[in-house]
C-alpha cells in the first residue's frame, strides 16, 4: 500500500516565523496484536520512525510504536530562518520510505 503523505504548510513565510506543519499519511499501522479469522496473529506492520529536516539539518524525529493510530496524523512547529527545503520522511517496517519535500520562501 504505497501512499503519498499529505503535508499542510505555507509556501511563504517571514524570516524567523514559526510555522505549524500538519501531516497525514495512509497506513494501517498493523499492531501485531490482532488476529485474522483463523485465529492467526496478523504480523506487525507499522511506520516506526518519522523525521523532519530543514536544508539537511534535523529539526525533530519520532520513534513510533504500535500504539500510534492508523493513518497517523501529526502536527508540530518548525521555523523558517531562510528560504529552503523541508523534508519529511516516514520509515516503514518493510524498509520503504515515504518522503515529502516542501520549499518555503522567506521574504
Amino acid at each position, binding site marked *: 500500500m504505497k501512499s503519498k503523505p499529505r503535508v499542510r504548510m505555507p509556501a511563504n513565510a517571514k524570516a524567523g516565523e514559526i510555522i505549524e506543519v500538519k501531516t497525514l499519511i495512509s497506513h494501517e499501522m498493523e499492531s501485531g496484536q490482532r488476529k485474522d479469522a483463523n485465529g492467526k496473529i496478523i504480523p506487525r506492520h507499522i511506520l516506526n520512525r518519522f523525521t523532519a529536516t530543514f536544508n539537511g539539518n*534535523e529539526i*525533530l524525529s519520532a520513534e513510533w*510504536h504500535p500504539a500510534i*493510530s492508523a493513518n497517523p496524523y501529526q*502536527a508540530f512547529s518548525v*521555523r523558517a530562518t531562510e528560504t529552503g527545503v523541508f523534508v519529511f520522511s516516514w520509515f516503514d517496517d518493510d524498509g520503504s520510505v515515504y518522503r515529502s519535500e516542501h520549499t518555503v520562501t522567506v521574504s
Partner: protein
Amino acid sequence: MDVRNGSKTRREILFAAAGLVAAAALPGQRASATTSEVDDLIKAIAGDRTIAEGKIAVDLPSIAENGLVVPLNFSVESPMSAGDYVRSVHIFADGNPNPQVATYSFTPLSPKAAAQLRIRLAKTQTVTVLAVMSNGDVYSAGQEVKVTIGGCGG
C-alpha cells in the same frame, strides 16, 4: 450487618465473568503492560535523576469513546535555544500490550517542543509523558483516560 456478607455482589460476578471472557479471547497474549514496566522504562531514561513535575502540558480527553483514535497534544516549556532545549519527550501507556507509545527527539532547530498526535489505548489507563532537557533534567506529567471501547486487538 451487611446481608451480602460472604457472597459476591452482582457487579463483582459480572466483572469476574468479563475477565474470564477477556482471558479466553487472548490465549498466550499479554492483555496489558504493568505500571512497574513503565517505571522500569522511565528509570532506564532518567537514571538516578530526580523526576520533577511541571513544565509539561498534556492535553488528552478524560473520556475517550474510541480507544483506537485518542488525540494527544503535548507541549514542554523551554526557550529551545542551543544551550537550553528539550532533548526528548517519551510517551507511555501502562495499560497497553506494549507500554511504549512514541518518543520525540527535538533539536535547537525546533521552535517548540510540542506535537499533536493520535494514539491507541487498549483500556482505561494512565498516559505518562516524560521530558528530558538538554542539561539532563527530567520532568513528568500523567493523565488518566477512561476508554469506552478499547483500541488494541480485534
